[in-house]
């Protein structure tokens, strides 16, 4: 599958710092160290550490309730861990602030689709550009100068993303009317509109049929390949995870039980026990 994607890499318009040539996994862009998160007595994460290297696709897997989504929420500041440090692009901090995470280039999709249901596909994706808009509300109300220019500029960028994800035909449709698979794609588009350096995908293929999953895999690989975006993804479909990810973290009951390439993880006894259960 990886080879396919490389072959497909064509002359697509890159929005992020496009690597152009074959992507090279670089130095760690995100390092999570000793993160512990508890809600009252429930320990969602306990001393989890791992790193994510630039341009790689990093999967987080684990049984239900293992703390995968909590981990993503810690990375982009929705949850604030009690212990640990998060180092993103060389800056260490105890916890992330949501707004800062977005400004620093962390994009995100949600497990349960979190689109703006009252707005069209185009408007949803345009909101992803909000951090790049400089004009004030007064200029926008008067629709003059910078406000008008920016609106057109960002529309052009958004149209590139719409082309990239092949959703041209629904750009003026309110998202509430779209089928599930397309909504997932629009959510990815909105995250891409931020031109993130690190993209967190929370179960991008959950609830999809085989064909939709293949499409989504292709898009994830293309994003990684063409834009050079680093991707952290949570997924339950082992086939997908083993196929597209470079390295895998396995969580179970809030602890990291394995970390390595798909082949290493597959052979790990602790992982097999976590998934299949173990006789006591």
């Amino acid at each position, binding site marked *: 599958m990886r080879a396919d994607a490389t072959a497909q890499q064509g002359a697509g318009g890159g929005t992020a710092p496009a690597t152009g040539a074959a992507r090279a996994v670089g130095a760690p862009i995100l390092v999570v160290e000793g993160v512990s998160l508890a809600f009252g007595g429930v320990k969602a994460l306990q001393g989890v550490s791992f790193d994510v290297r630039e341009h790689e696709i990093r999967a987080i897997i684990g049984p239900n309730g293992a703390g995968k989504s909590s981990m993503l929420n810690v990375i*982009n500041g*929705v949850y604030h861990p009690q212990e640990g440090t998060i180092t993103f692009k060389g800056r260490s901090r105890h916890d992330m602030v*949501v*707004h800062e*995470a*977005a*400004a620093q280039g962390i*994009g*995100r999709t*949600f497990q349960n689709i*979190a*689109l*703006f*249901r*009252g*707005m069209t596909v185009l*408007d949803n994706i*345009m*909101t*992803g*550009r*909000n*951090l790049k*808009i400089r*004009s004030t*509300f007064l200029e*926008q*109300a*008067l*629709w003059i100068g910078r*406000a008008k220019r*920016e*609106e*057109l500029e960002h*529309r*052009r960028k958004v*149209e590139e993303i719409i082309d990239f994800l092949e959703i041209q035909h629904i750009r003026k449709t309110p998202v509430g009317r779209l089928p599930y698979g397309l909504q997932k794609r629009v959510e990815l588009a*909105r*995250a891409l509109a*931020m031109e993130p350096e690190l993209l967190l995908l929370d179960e991008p293929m959950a609830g999809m049929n085989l064909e939709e999953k293949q499409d989504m895999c292709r898009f994830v690989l293309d994003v990684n390949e063409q834009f050079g975006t680093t991707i952290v993804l949570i997924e339950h479909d082992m086939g997908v995870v083993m196929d597209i990810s470079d390295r895998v973290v396995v969580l179970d009951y809030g602890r990291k039980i394995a970390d390595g390439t798909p082949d290493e993880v597959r052979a790990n006894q602790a992982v097999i026990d976590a998934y299949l259960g173990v006789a006591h």
Partner: protein
Amino acid sequence: MLYREAGQFRATYAEDQQIFPLRQDRIGVAALLVFAFVVIPLVGDQYWLSAILTPFLIFALAALGLNILTGYAGQLSLGTAAFMAVGAFATYNFVLRVPGIPILVAFVLAGICAALVGIAFGLPSLRIKGFYLAVATLAAQFFVLWAIQRIGWITNYSASGVITAQNYSILGIPIDTPVSKYVLTLSIVTVLALLAKNLARSETGRAFMAVRDMDVAASVIGIPLMRTKLLAFAISSFYCGVAGALYAYTYLGTVEPEAFNLDLSFRILFMIIIGGVGSVLGSFLGAAFIVLLPIVLNYVVPPVSEATGIEISHAIISNLELMIFGGLIIFFLIVEPHGLARLWQIGKEKLRLWPFPH
């Protein structure tokens, strides 16, 4: 057939992002504006101009203000009348205490005062939502009226709290006839409505709707929740404040604080529910509906009662009005939560094909 976009190709993003992308809409809006600015002042009689059209425009503006806050940004408010009161009494004080201030400047400053009060009472929205926020804005409603009644300076120590709008003129033309007051109101409302439409289709409007639809997702893509909510309160209160100023200066002339009571807040809330939540057009449709319904009933009911032989007194007519309001609000909440504006939109979609079936 009559209303469709066939043959109108939009080849650039600029064309696609026009305020009214359809040619028919542009013609319609232009025709409406010509009618409102030219025909009505020529043919309208005093009763229609000063008792129906001017208050309709003022209520539409207040409804638009509330719609920005509740319809676009999703923050429920019951303090609309209070923000209008701030606008009215602030204008009075600016004209009173700043000699020679142009009235339009006074209106804008009064709007800004209302915006500041709106921001102050919008602060609770950072922590609470929905129902609870509505109750918090209720505090604005009671506090502002109380302050106006108790602080003599605001009403220039008038005994009963009643103020009388001073005479004013624009560019040397005194605004003292029903026609001139109507045209002034219409001009201000037109400009502010166009500005609101621009806001709705640009980044600010999208941020408001994003906060309304899914606030966690909005903050994750970088929309600052606090700033966005407070901006919504500020802009909304500005509109309400200007509406309040017009209420005093082009409609009533003499106002008491009680004119801006909770009843008025609810009336404006009903306007946006019936007209359409989250729609500029809906604010106008809702205001028209609520202003016109009593008049229509007064025209319609007496002939009906004569024809059927059932005696219907005026007291019953005014009760009938309340019953119809109540019934319609329940009807719209259940059947068409997006109000008359949505019905209008459905009508337009039907018109694309009419009279052909396909």
